[in-house]
């Protein structure tokens, strides 16, 4: 593993819902470091706190306790405004339900975050064209989301998440609403992002999506119970399958 600084860091992270007896810790004292270029998958049963964790890391929710650092800067104490600016410039989100702007074309949906992050109109347009090509949707650039399939919409959403050249992409059940063919398209893109060194944190209950990551964390009841490296040395196991006996 190459030596690199953590892009994303959390210390003693807690998110508590409710009070007194009905108090629930959705995220319970979590420490995390995500080095630059790492793709990390967080898995666990529904209700284990993985989505809440992602929201805390992306500054969509504020922790009850603990710290979140993005590129060496503490973010959980920022004002709403500063936080919104940081999200626009440094984070890309991919959601289960796509959340595209229905009245904008695919290309405009991708351009928008680039513009908000401070790219010029021309740069934003060029970037959108490039990214839509990356996700195989050049021919659909002028289509409205309603004219696209679920898989195509999610690919637009991934292109959009990349538009601001984010330090990190946060993906929440990115294949949760997709059939298996569309899931494969997303897998392929995630595999390319991994190879390209894009830092990415995803939460998922789909082992196939998780298997595209460099590292896998398992979560139960708000806590990490396992942390495994997936990428790296091939086990040679696949080759062994073809020992088709004489």
């Amino acid at each position, binding site marked *: 593993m190459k030596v690199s600084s953590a892009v994303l860091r959390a210390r003693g992270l807690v998110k508590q819902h409710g009070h007194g007896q009905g108090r629930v810790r959705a995220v319970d004292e979590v420490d995390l470091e995500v080095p630059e270029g790492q793709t990390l998958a967080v898995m666990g*049963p*529904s209700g284990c706190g993985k989505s809440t964790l992602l929201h805390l890391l992306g500054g969509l929710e504020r922790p009850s306790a603990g710290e979140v650092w993005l590129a060496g800067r503490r973010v959980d104490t920022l004002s709403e405004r500063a936080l919104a600016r940081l999200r626009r410039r440094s984070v890309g989100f991919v959601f289960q339900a796509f959340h595209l702007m229905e009245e904008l074309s695919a290309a405009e949906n991708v351009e928008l975050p680039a513009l908000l992050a401070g790219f010029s109109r021309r740069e934003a347009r060029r970037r959108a064209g490039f990214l839509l090509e990356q996700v195989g949707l050049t021919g659909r650039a002028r289509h409205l989301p309603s004219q696209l399939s679920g898989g195509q919409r999610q690919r637009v959403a991934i292109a959009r998440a990349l538009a601001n050249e984010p330090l990190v992409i946060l993906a929440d059940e990115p294949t949760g609403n997709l059939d298996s063919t569309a899931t494969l398209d997303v*897998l*392929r893109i995630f*595999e390319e992002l991994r190879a390209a060194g894009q830092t990415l944190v995803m939460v998922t*209950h789909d*082992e*196939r999506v*998780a*298997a*595209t*990551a460099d590292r*896998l964390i*398992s979560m*139960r*009841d708000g806590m990490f*119970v*396992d942390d*495994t490296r*997936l*990428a790296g040395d*091939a*086990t040679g*196991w*696949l*080759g*062994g*399958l*073809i020992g*088709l*006996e*004489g």
Partner: protein
Amino acid sequence: MQDAVLAMLAKEPSHGYHLRARLRQSLGLLGESMNPGQVYVTLARLERAGLVVCERADGLPDRPERKVYALTPAGQERVTAWLAEVSWPKPDLAEFHLKLIAAAAARLADPIELVAAQRRELLRRLAETQRAALAEPAGSRAVLLLEGIVLRLQADLRWLEACERAWSGAAGKTGDEGEPGGRDDDEAEGA
């Protein structure tokens, strides 16, 4: 392997090297690791068993890769029987299941830890298989084989989840978290 080679000869008599190329194409990346001599060894065995004959040899007579093999009537029959046969590889889960029970009974190891270690290994295999599938060129038939391996690994992972749930329930965890009932054990298969 013998049955597969025989069945491939049903299309037309072939050279060993041609059969080998067809096997490799069907298996994709998996076929890369195939021992080059394996097809010839298999053909020699089939010949001894009277299931194939060497029809002729092109060029140098004593080079096995120049021999053209064809099915004998007995070979034909065996191919037909093979195609009609319903067989499926056994999933060998009993051994792991017994390992968990023995480990727990003798307090040799924590079954939940054993499940976690197994899960890590299967996820690594899933990652490897999936990468191999993504690396296959478009239209490759081998993708279908890799897809089958992926689906089996997913099924095994689901079973490990069930094991984990069951064994966490059995151990009553550490008991200091005042959480009655444990996890959703009623939700048999998980999502």
